[in-house]
């Protein structure tokens, strides 16, 4: 609830649309990949070090973690296809013999498939999110705030949380 409130506050604030867009992109990347992978640690480092919106990241991470359950079979099959591709065998063998790449667990079909799909989607998610935030602020924010249901929400517990969130 707090994260959702923070996300709304970020959307309605003066925060840069790119900060929110990259946060959503990183949330997507972390949400799609299996936990406890080196790739996830790198994403976490980037999220914390780069000035991206943490609320948007956490909300995106939660949404894409749920989506990942549905997409797991597709991502695993993409990983299977890549790892069994004859033309890539020399590459995989070279990487497999490197301790660093072994640490990335690239030889796991779901890990590789989710990273590849995540990275392919990343530019589109980032640009789409940036456009979405801008469009929301220009066109929808005022209209949303005027909605009867929003007015009702503003009197609810959710709104008190929203108000209590700093920044």
């Amino acid at each position, binding site marked *: 609830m707090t994260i959702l409130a923070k996300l709304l506050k970020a959307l309605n604030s003066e925060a840069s649309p790119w900060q929110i867009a990259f946060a959503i992109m990183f949330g997507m990347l972390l949400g799609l990949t299996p936990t406890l992978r080196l790739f996830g640690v790198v994403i976490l480092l980037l999220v*914390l*070090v780069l000035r991206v919106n943490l609320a948007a990241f956490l909300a995106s991470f939660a949404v894409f973690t749920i989506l990942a359950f549905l997409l797991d079979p597709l991502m695993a099959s993409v*990983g299977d296809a890549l790892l069994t591709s004859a033309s890539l065998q020399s590459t995989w*063998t070279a990487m497999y013999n490197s301790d660093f790449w072994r640490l990335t*667990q690239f*030889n*796991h079909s779901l890990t590789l498939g989710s990273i590849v799909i995540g990275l392919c989607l990343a530019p589109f998610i980032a640009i789409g999110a940036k456009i979405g935030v801008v469009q929301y602020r220009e066109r929808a924010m005022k209209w949303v705030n005027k909605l009867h249901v929003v007015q009702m929400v503003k009197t609810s517990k959710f709104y008190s949380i929203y108000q209590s969130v700093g920044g």
Partner: protein
Amino acid sequence: MRNVIRWPGLLAFVLVIGLIALISMLFIDKAVKYAIESLGADATGAEVNVGSVSHRYSPFGFTVEDIQVTNHSAPENNQVQIARASADVDLLALLMNKVIIDELTVDGVQFDQPRKSPGAVYRQPAADGSNSPFNLPDNIEMPSVDEIMANSPLKTTAAANEAETAYQQHKAAVEQAYQALPDKKKIEAYKTQLKALQDVKLSKPEDVIAAEKEFKQLKEALKQDKQKFAQFQQTLETAKQDLGPKLAALKAAPGQDFDLLKGLVAGDAAAFGELTESVFGPQARKWSDSLFAALDIVGPMLQQQAEQEAEQSRAAGTWYSFDDTTALPGFLIRKANVSIVVKGQSIASNWQDITTEHEVLGRPTLFSVDSKNSPLWDLLNIQGQLSLDSLGLNANQHWKLAGVKLQQLALANADKLSAVLNSALLASEGSLTLNHGALTGSGDIALRDVSIAAEGQNKLTNILAGALNGISSLNINSDISGTLAQPAFGLKSDLDNQLADAVKASLGGEAQQKLNSLQARLNAKADPALGTTGDGMQQWLKWEELADGNLGSVEDMLKAKFDNKLEQEKDKVLDKLKGKIFG
């Protein structure tokens, strides 16, 4: 750049990673303890307890103390308990989701030790299907000869019927062929006629013609009779070939039936046939539990883990290997030294390449136990290997024991008979093969310097107890079959015959009287058929002798030089005619 980088975030990252590491360090021991207990319970189907777990970083590894695996057949005991296990784990492989243990040391392994409190059983073991440990007949009443003969398929009866049938089948044909033969009078008549022809004085041509005609008729009659002799011989030979073996079988049948049935006169033969199994079976099963421990415990655990890994890989992606020379399975213990404690004596066993993916590793798990000159045995040697493939567990094992000192072992403790092995020296050698769950194997158990204290509760078991008490050595052959979960042991020895003889001997006059009666009854069954067919056969043989004599006479007559005699007489008549015509 200042707007892009959030330096406090780096500190937060370090704190987050540090926090995760701290939590891991604090709870890793509890997590491993929980994992061993829960995975062990899944694998064995019974409660698994771990006393404590501690980890170290250089080299990275764990030490686990006081592992207890509940025996699901007897929850008040542990199937196995381990005082201490220490493993060096390849951390890099662990990060790649592989459990590679370079060296595992397990000390103080003990089997079938009592627990402080009974452990929980999650899966009931399959019933072993073994017979009750002691199943001797309640009474020693001997069955009557009538009962035995009525309930037993007798060879004598069958042989008598066959001989009788064969005799009746050939009797008419032989008699008919014999009746057709010329009798003695006819033979004598032939001889007289032949003599007359040989002595005849021919003076007229018409006499010559008449003599020649008579000679031809005689020769024809002799040839026809010779044919009848040949017919008789053929008929008789066919009858003899059919009846002869059946008559011999009939003569032998009472003796064979007697040998077969005399054991029944003294009691339940089936009970004696199972005495080795009854007396030594329970103890042999206990010995086998120790001998097969490697397969019995490690095999199913590896199999269960392999199945779980297969399920996990289907649900959450697949791990690929790209280097044939260093491909590693998901789970591997390269080397394990396991110290097993048996009656205070430590037995070292060595293991290599314990894994669930032998096809990936390309070699089986090897294990060996080698212990010499212990106070309890002179030699204990077990060599074996096991491997898992897509169809299940395969293994083979060879064992050799010598000079195992047995003392105060309860062999049987039942209402009817109790037996304790006070002391003995045991030697055993055998092998066992497991092919996708199916067991085959055999072993020899030799007991020397045996001292058994047995006590019976009725007439029969007292006799058995006496015989057991007199045993000084015993060789037992065992056959192993069934499955790993339900092994079946067949134990055979000369004890069965020894005890059966002892019982028979002790039954004395009563049994002998019945045996005599049995012999007489069997002979009586054979005698009528023997009389009919035997007498008939004797008659045929006499006929054959007579026929042979007459045939000889006929052949002699046929060989007589009738033609020369007639020619001479004919020449004389012709000379006379020439003299009269030409003067």
